[in-house]
């Protein structure tokens, strides 16, 4: 029989291969995030101190909007030729597909963050006064929060006629607690005024709760009409 980790691995490899060949998600995300960085840098001319205060919000909102592009692509390629039906008629578990999709999106958004962060640093003259290593925890937990809900709600909206609109409508409200934690934690670390520990723990709890919830309900989403 098929093992769930084996199916997850095979699906992840397949998604990475498809993205490597088409570059649909990465290209659109990069282009979008780049536009945000450039437009905001021309719109505002903040001092270093002001940059540290607003950068948290700016960075994460840019990543959230850019991630939505990738999240829509994830399922769009499963709709072409109705390939998703081939998965649905197989004995493979729904959660194996979900975990592969979340991991794939996590990798894509992480690549985006790795490429865009140096640009943010340069354009906004950023330097962390607080413990900079904590930014890594914020990035990992925050990115997971975005993609786990995003992948779930993108799957819910794929069968709707206006799925590009539906995804932000479903995703943004439920992401507000995580977004708040990401922005506050990042700002705390950059300014060094407060400890980011509370916000990081909140992000971790958010991730556990929503990952569990998504895993519990994904089978209904996948096999529902």
């Amino acid at each position: 029989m098929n093992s769930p980790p084996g199916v997850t691995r095979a699906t992840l490899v397949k998604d990475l291969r498809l993205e490597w060949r088409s570059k649909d998600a990465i290209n659109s995300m990069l282009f979008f995030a780049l536009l945000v960085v450039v437009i905001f840098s021309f719109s505002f001319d903040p001092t270093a101190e002001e940059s540290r205060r607003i950068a948290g919000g700016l960075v994460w909102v840019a990543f959230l909007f850019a991630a939505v592009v990738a999240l829509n692509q994830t399922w769009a390629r499963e709709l072409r030729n109705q390939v998703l039906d081939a998965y649905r008629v197989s004995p493979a578990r729904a959660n194996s597909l979900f975990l592969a999709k979340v991991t794939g999106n996590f990798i894509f958004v992480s690549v985006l963050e790795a490429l865009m962060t140096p640009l943010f640093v340069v354009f906004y003259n950023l330097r962390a006064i607080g413990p900079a290593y904590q930014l890594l925890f914020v990035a990992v937990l925050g990115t997971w929060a975005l993609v786990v809900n995003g992948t779930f709600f993108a799957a819910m909206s794929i069968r709707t006629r206006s799925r590009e609109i539906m995804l932000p409508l479903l995703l943004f409200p439920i992401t507000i607690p995580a977004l708040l934690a990401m922005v506050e934690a990042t700002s705390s670390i950059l300014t060094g005024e407060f400890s980011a520990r509370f916000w990081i723990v909140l992000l971790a709890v958010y991730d556990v709760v929503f990952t569990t919830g998504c895993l519990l309900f994904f089978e209904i989403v996948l096999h529902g009409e």
Partner: protein
Amino acid sequence: MTDSPIIAVNGLVKQFGRFAALRGVTASFEAGRLYAILGDNGAGKTTLLRVLAGLTPATRGSIAVLGATNLREVCAHLGYMAHPSLLYDEMSGMENLRYFARLYGIQDDARCQAVIRSVNLDPSLALPVGQYSQGMRQRMSLARALLNDPRILLLDEPFSNVDVRSAREMAGLLGQLRDSGKTILVVTHQAALLREVADEFVWMEAGQIVSRTREFQPEEAK
């Protein structure tokens, strides 16, 4: 060949909003037989196949496949071929089949190569499926449906856009699969291709089965 029904449906109704695609279909299908399901567009043929594959839940009625009413329990024994290819255009045929094989716990490439050869395609062909001709795509789609060596094959329009020679070869292959003990339900508008191999012709109209005949009678198509 046995006479026990491998698929039994009773009072099957499927509604899409106010439109009833299936209106109380009751039928049984025996093991090791090839059924051609015929009828005009909108007769409910594809919906019936999707319900049997577990892709579309029935609104009312009961289904038993291999004795199970929960189709997830028996999906490992089903092979499903839809009108779209159910293949990734950006990957080669072998890459596609290798991925779908993993979903069924098949780890070796030998099985993938065997089913590709069985539909007269070359497993070493590196061309992405998106660049295949329609006929090649249909045959690769059939290979995907055969991957898990299913006991029941549900095929939706396998001959559409396939040239006559390839379609005849596919029909012959379906006959061989039936002879090997598989139960095959084929939805098609090209019933004449199955004249030699089908055991029964099932005619649908307006969401109901209106007749079942052992011989192909073209006038029924009217």
